[in-house]
């Protein structure tokens, strides 16, 4: 592939995906299980084993699940929920939100000791979480909860039928970052009201729901509830009206208050003509609006009726879907020459949304192109990364040369004694530019959503940071006139802050594994800011020598001592620091001279013993 050439996407496989899922036999099994389970009054969960796959089934709904009137859209914050990790919860200003009704139901199930025990047993198996309606949202939350356990040998997947939207963009991003979006498949009947209903404020639909929910319940279970036909049809029209008002605002990008919810995962839209899968969240939002726009000739109240009845009619829909999908779609006149656009047109045709509906078509096209661009970007970065290895190698080389001369690359670069240091600086700048660009691209969302959790890039970034940040620090202190600390946020380059954050996030997710303690000192100091800490301690030492701010300066020095001791203990410091010429050793000599006057220090100092005995021996 020529990387510099714009390369439009070639294909769109939404229909193939739908066929793949619809014909594999999982869907009918899942629906059958839900349907028979929902008949019972049991409101917890059910396990069903089928060959080597375990289905975990959540019941459809209870009345109270829909009711969540304390916030406008029934959303709530998950910050206080211990069951989800910090990575999922997002920042303070952009917290992750989920639907409260679903969350409460899931929490209720979690309290059941039986559930946890059974999940423990299942940890090495293939699990499919399935649910219908609110139960679908519960299943999705359960899937997230289960995925966060990061069990290596298990494979979990989530299938929902007519589930409402359950989370906001922050949650979606967090899931995308872990590359889990592909594990959610939401089956949606084209007209079903529930998947789109929380796009409208809860109040506007509450009254209608009160009338409709009993009707749904009677459909899903054997119990007979009398529902007056008249109030039903009124409620149907009412709810559809209110929902469409909101979806049209969203689909047309009109300004206004939007519901926080976004689609999370792959949506499989089904109609009598077939089915297609869509992955892009924006495009799905648009589809949620346009798919209820009826064809001409169908009266509105009929559509409204369908919107309600389809919610409990998945069994019927699944029966016909195989057949519809396997019948070849034939396009008499192809809309365009591009096979990508033909693919989209086929998908829209399959779900009965006219291809002439430009909004959806363009949204899908844009989504496909954006995804393609992301893939191209990462290809480009891959190539650039390997070219940049030569700069990195140069710096490694430099470091070794310095070591042979008994000094640290940090000091050598700071003093800039040799002509070679000029080339080192060149390599440093080039690498800095490369990583700045990557961080920038990631923040602009033009890289794949799971980019910052990919091992390759985390490792490359960490190696870069550990090797080059000391040079950045040296550069800062050599040129700094304002006596600013490198460690303050406005001085430390953004790339290092971000790279360190990525690594820490990744390490948190790895916490399940025992980490080996080091037995040898690291070849690169693990904390890339070590030298900045040292520089600050040096400043403090200077003022100490000059007799200024004695207490504050002393505190800084002691703090630094403790810090060094701690990284010596876990061996995450490189031995090159203890080379004779290193500025650390110089600092230590001067510092200990001052401190030796106080006998108290001698016995309390965390570093003294090490430096006096062991430290010297360890030297190369």
């Amino acid at each position: 592939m020529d990387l510099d050439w714009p390369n439009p996407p070639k294909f769109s496989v939404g229909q193939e995906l739908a066929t793949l899922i619809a014909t594999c036999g999982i869907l009918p099994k899942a629906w059958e299980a839900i349907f028979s389970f929902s008949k019972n009054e049991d409101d917890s969960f059910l396990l069903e084993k089928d060959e080597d796959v375990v289905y975990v089934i959540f019941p459809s709904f209870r009345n109270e699940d829909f009711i969540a009137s304390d916030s406008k859209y029934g959303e709530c914050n998950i910050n206080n929920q211990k069951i989800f990790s910090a990575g999922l919860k997002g920042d303070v200003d952009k917290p992750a939100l989920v639907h409260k009704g679903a969350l409460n139901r899931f929490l209720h199930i979690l309290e059941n000791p039986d559930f946890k025990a059974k999940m423990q047993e299942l940890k090495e198996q293939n699990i499919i979480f399935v649910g219908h309606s609110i139960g679908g949202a519960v299943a999705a939350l359960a899937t997230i909860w289960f995925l966060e356990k990061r069990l290596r040998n298990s494979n979990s997947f989530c299938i929902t039928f007519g589930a409402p939207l359950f989370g906001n963009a922050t949650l979606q991003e967090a899931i995308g970052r872990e590359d889990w979006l592909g594990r959610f498949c939401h089956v949606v009947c084209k007209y079903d009201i529930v998947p789109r209903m929380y796009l409208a404020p809860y109040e506007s639909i509450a009254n209608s729901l009160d009338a409709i929910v009993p009707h749904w319940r009677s459909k899903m279970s054997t119990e007979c509830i009398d529902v007056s036909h008249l109030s039903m049809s009124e409620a149907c029209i009412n709810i559809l009206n209110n929902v469409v008002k909101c979806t049209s605002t969203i689909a047309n990008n009109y300004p206004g208050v939007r519901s926080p919810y976004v689609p999370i995962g792959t949506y499989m839209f089904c109609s009598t003509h077939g089915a297609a899968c869509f992955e892009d969240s924006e495009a799905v939002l648009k589809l949620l609006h346009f798919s209820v726009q009826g064809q001409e000739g169908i009266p509105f109240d009929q559509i409204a009726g369908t919107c309600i009845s389809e919610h409990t009619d998945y069994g019927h829909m699944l029966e016909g879907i195989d057949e519809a999908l396997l019948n070849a779609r034939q396009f008499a006149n192809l809309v365009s020459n591009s096979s990508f656009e033909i693919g989209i047109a086929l998908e829209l045709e399959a779900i009965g949304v006219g291809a002439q509906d430009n909004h959806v078509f363009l949204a899908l096209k844009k989504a496909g192109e954006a995804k393609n661009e992301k893939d191209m970007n990462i290809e480009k970065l891959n190539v650039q990364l390997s070219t940049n290895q030569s700069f990195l190698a140069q710096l490694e080389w430099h470091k070794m040369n310095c070591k042979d001369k008994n000094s640290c690359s940090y000091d050598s670069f700071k003093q800039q004694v040799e002509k070679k240091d000029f080339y080192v600086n060149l390599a440093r700048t080039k690498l800095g530019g490369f990583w700045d660009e990557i961080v920038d691209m990631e923040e602009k969302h033009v890289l794949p959503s799971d980019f910052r959790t990919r091992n390759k890039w985390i490792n490359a970034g960490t190696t870069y940071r550990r090797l080059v940040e000391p040079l950045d620090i040296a550069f800062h202190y050599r040129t700094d006139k304002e006596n600013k600390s490198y460690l303050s946020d406005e001085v430390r380059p953004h790339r290092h802050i971000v790279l360190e954050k990525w690594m820490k996030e990744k390490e948190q997710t790895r916490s399940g594994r025992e980490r080996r303690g080091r037995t040898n000192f690291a070849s690169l100091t693990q904390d890339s800011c070590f030298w900045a800490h040292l520089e600050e301690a040096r400043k403090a030492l200077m003022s100490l020598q000059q007799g200024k701010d004695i207490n504050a300066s002393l505190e800084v020095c002691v703090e630094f001592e403790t810090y060094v001791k701690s990284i010596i203990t876990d061996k995450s410091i490189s031995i090159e620091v203890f080379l004779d010429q290193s500025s650390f050793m110089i600092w230590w000599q001067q510092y200990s001279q001052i401190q030796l006057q106080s006998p108290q220090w001698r016995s309390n100092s965390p570093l003294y013993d090490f430096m006096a005995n062991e430290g010297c021996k360890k030297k190369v």
Partner: protein
Amino acid sequence: MEASKICRAEENITYFVGTDLISEAWNACQNAYKSRDFYKIEYKNVLIIAFSGAPNSRDYVTDNDFDECDINYNLNDEFNCLVDGDSENPKPAMVRKAFLDRFLCTLRSSNLKAKILEVQKDIVEKKTIIFTGHSFGGAIASLWTLWTLEKRHKIPPLCITFGCPLVGDKIFAKAIEREKWSHYFCHIVSRNDIVPRICFSPFKSPFISKALDELLPYWYDSMRNRKAENQTKVENQSKVENQKTVQDGSHPLSKENSQEFIKQVISDASQVLTHETTALVVGPANLVGGAAKDLIKRSPYRPFGYYVFCSTSGSVCCIENTETALHMLYFALENSKLFGACIMEHIEYDKTIKHISKSSGLTASYSKTVKSDKSSADDVRIDLQLEAMGIGNQNTQAWLGLKTIEENKNKLAINIDQQIVKLDEMQEFMAELEWYKTMCEGNQSNQDKDLNANKQSYYECFKTNKTENDMKANKNRVKLAAFWDRITELVEKEELPKDLQTQDKWINAGTEYRLLVEPLDIAHYYRLGKHEDSGSYIARGRPRRYKLLQKWLDDKKKKSGTESVTRSKPPILTQNSCFWAYVEEAINSSTDKEPKDYKMQLENMVARHEISSEDLSSSTITNWQNSLSSKAG
């Protein structure tokens, strides 16, 4: 690129038709039904061996869903090159156990093996062997062909099958393509015949097993009886044919059962097809299909070799790409849904063969019927193929599917072109490194002629690194690593042609690179003290590129079969590129026992003349040996 698009399958079939081999093979197949295992006949200079397609109770009693098993199960690695993956983690090709068992049965019990070896050794007569078989017999013929091909004699065998079911999985198909054996297999498939698709379904499933229970004996009986008819009424063939068309629909399966049966197969086939298509477009990651892949059981079997589809209307379509063949197998069936024909066509290959003989096997002859308003040659070709299959280019799904394959093929072609250009550029860096090596070794020997002990190999030069030259060498090392890493990545992502790793050009370039540069990588590794961080180079630090390149060479050696000639002189480059890593580990190891093992190893290598004299006389080695002997002494 355009030139490569001429269909070799067409040439093949034209050749078969021209020499009457197809009808001879078909006759042999029918005769095979009367004999126990196989039937042998000599025709001109060709030995035709036909296997019976008689059903066997074992055929559809399966252990696991699709009855797949390791191809070398119960064998001593007879199928050497049908293994993918690396030595630590081999991924053997899977084949249907029922077929493999039957193959093994004929391999062990009959004198066929001896006969084949004898024919192959007979260089004077230059006889060609053709394996053939109808139905399940075709599967056995395929395995026999493969077994014979593995022996790599001068005259390769050919394989013609009629209505043969799928035999092996994707690795199996890929290996055959990689070894460039595809054109030895010619699968003739009547357009609606269900048997070539039957392996898409698990035989356990009720619809399938019920249908097979009735159909297998029926097919077998009619094949046996047909044989008799054929012998007596060769001249009345047309009459027999008419009779057969009347017979259509007279098979024992009820209409409902056959419908359910065929629908099941279509549905299972669509599983395989959609999986392959989506994987090709989006890649296996980050999509619903990828996440759910372990949850969904789908058939592992894929087509291999060349396919010749023949429709009842008499049109013939030759396909050499296995992915295209997969599409055709599915869409032809899905498009027509002639439930009776699906079952009957399996035993009506007489007709099919007549069509093929008439058409002389050219897809292109249908060009008149296709309106070529499409721009590229690819598009026209897709239209032609669909037309010939009777699917029609209005079937957008089929059209898009085939287009996906074409685009993917083009992508691979462009990728490899670019990499070949880059490979040439890399030669410059290689040359510089070679010069560096000579410099290091030459300088040393000039200066220290007397002090033999202080000789340095380029490994040591690089490790101590004093001069500007070392710096330059390091840059070259990094550049070359970037290139080969990219190749490794592309190969692993399957974005380079499958036969790349069997091309001498690439194997040689890779080996040369590995032998010259890996010592530098080892030097770098130990110089930076990475072995203290993460362990020995061989266990933890060896880059994937070297493992891959070594595997290419090992595979090639394995295939050539002949023992490599033992060296009589030390080579210019040490042949074991990990040599220095062993040395480093030996020096670093502190226990008493280990150095001896290392010493043994080293002595072995020296005895086989695998180590260059420069390396051997270098100071590190000499010092180490001295220290060892002083310890021992």
